[in-house]
């Protein structure tokens, strides 16, 4: 490993550095490919006061070696998060590997967009990026070993804490469900109203134009001595 400084200064030594490096290997889950300036957006429909944690890691395609480089410093990813009303909640530039967090304050569809705006990629023709992404929502975003260490919980207490978190998530989702059902009901009632008013208006217009036509044609037929 790349040791730093004189032996005397570095107390921890190479095993720690190795572990640190492995920890930094980061999110190695699902991945997909995007083009140079392509924007990829994901939608998360979440209740309010829910925390969302996203981890990503990018790798660049090396055209000569025909392989994805393990890590490329200098690559930047811009992360933008919009709330259901379209207002920007988070808009930040991160490095080639990053972690973003936000908490929703309004329930609804939040949009998480990622795009690379690194100019270095323009030098490598046909730039393609491999993006490893992992988004955890609500209860899944909790780090249980950390909570156990911080609050000094036994195993059973930790299990109980996990159950409490799950139940809280279910409650929030049900509140959100009630809010959605209200919106749906308002939309349906609005459609009902509009159909009702339109059919009344249509009938009135038909009657009026019918009367006008009859009057108009009657005087015409009388003039032509047909009636």
């Amino acid at each position: 490993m790349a040791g730093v400084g004189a032996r005397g200064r570095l107390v921890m030594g190479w095993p720690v550095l190795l572990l640190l490096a492995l920890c930094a290997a980061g999110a190695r889950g699902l991945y997909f490919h995007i083009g140079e300036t392509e924007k990829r957006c994901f939608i998360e429909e979440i209740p309010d006061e829910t925390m969302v944690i996203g981890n990503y890691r990018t790798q660049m395609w090396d055209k000569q070696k025909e392989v994805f480089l393990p890590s490329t410093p200098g690559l930047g990813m811009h992360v933008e998060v919009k709330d259901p009303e379209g207002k920007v909640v988070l808009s930040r530039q991160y490095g080639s590997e990053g972690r973003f967090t936000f908490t929703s304050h309004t329930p609804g569809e939040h949009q998480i967009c990622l795009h690379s705006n690194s100019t270095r990629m323009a030098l490598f023709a046909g730039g393609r990026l491999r993006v490893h992404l992992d988004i955890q929502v609500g209860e899944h975003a909790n780090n249980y070993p950390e909570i156990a260490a911080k609050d000094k919980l036994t195993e059973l207490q930790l299990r109980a804490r996990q159950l409490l978190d799950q139940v809280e998530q279910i409650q929030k989702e049900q509140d959100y469900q009630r809010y959605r059902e209200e919106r749906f009901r308002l939309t349906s009632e609005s459609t009902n109203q509009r159909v009702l008013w339109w059919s009344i208006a249509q009938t009135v217009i038909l009657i009026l134009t019918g009367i006008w036509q009859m009057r108009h044609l009657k005087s015409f037929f009388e003039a032509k001595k047909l009636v």
Partner: protein
Amino acid sequence: MDSAAPRSTSALLLLLLLLLLLRAERTRGAELTFELPDSAKQCFHEDVEQGVKFSLDYQVITGGHYDVDCYVEDPLGNTIYRETKKQYDSFTHRAEVKGVYQFCFSNEFSTFSHKTIYFDFQVGDEPPILPDMGNRVTALTQMESACVTIHEALKTVIDSQTHYRLREAQDRARAEDLNNRVSYWSIASTDEQTPAFCKLAQSVAGAPSASVMGSRRN
């Protein structure tokens, strides 16, 4: 990551090992919703070990006829699952080969409808919340078994809530679409019908003023 650094190096090493294990175990599933433009295809890849069971759940939320093509390929390039124009489906498979599995969603059959697709890709079993819980030698106590049972039941509840939410999003999108169509069409048809009726009468009997004056003269 950890603010309170322990004194001894070995404790720090242990903590880092714990964190490493945590990181290694965490990313075991992905649940994402994304928009698939018309005539487009999007693929996702994941590394799976041999003998591990993985499952893919997907559902189309908005767009067109709410259908999408989906296929799953193993590392050797064989198609292990392929469906066309499906609205929702669930697919489970035990990985025979270790490597990168890819699953793709295709909207290439559609020329003008964007689709919003939700998928849930789970690999293997859920890891325990503390890394050393997996290496038990004794049986679980009654309390612990009760906790496990409740946890599994709550997971089922959360899953069904997700499916309910997706269905409701689909219905709400349709209702809002209907609402918009009713507004536009009612205004458009009234604007178009009234002048049409008047023009029809005028074309039969000429302009109103001329015929009225004509009848009065007679």
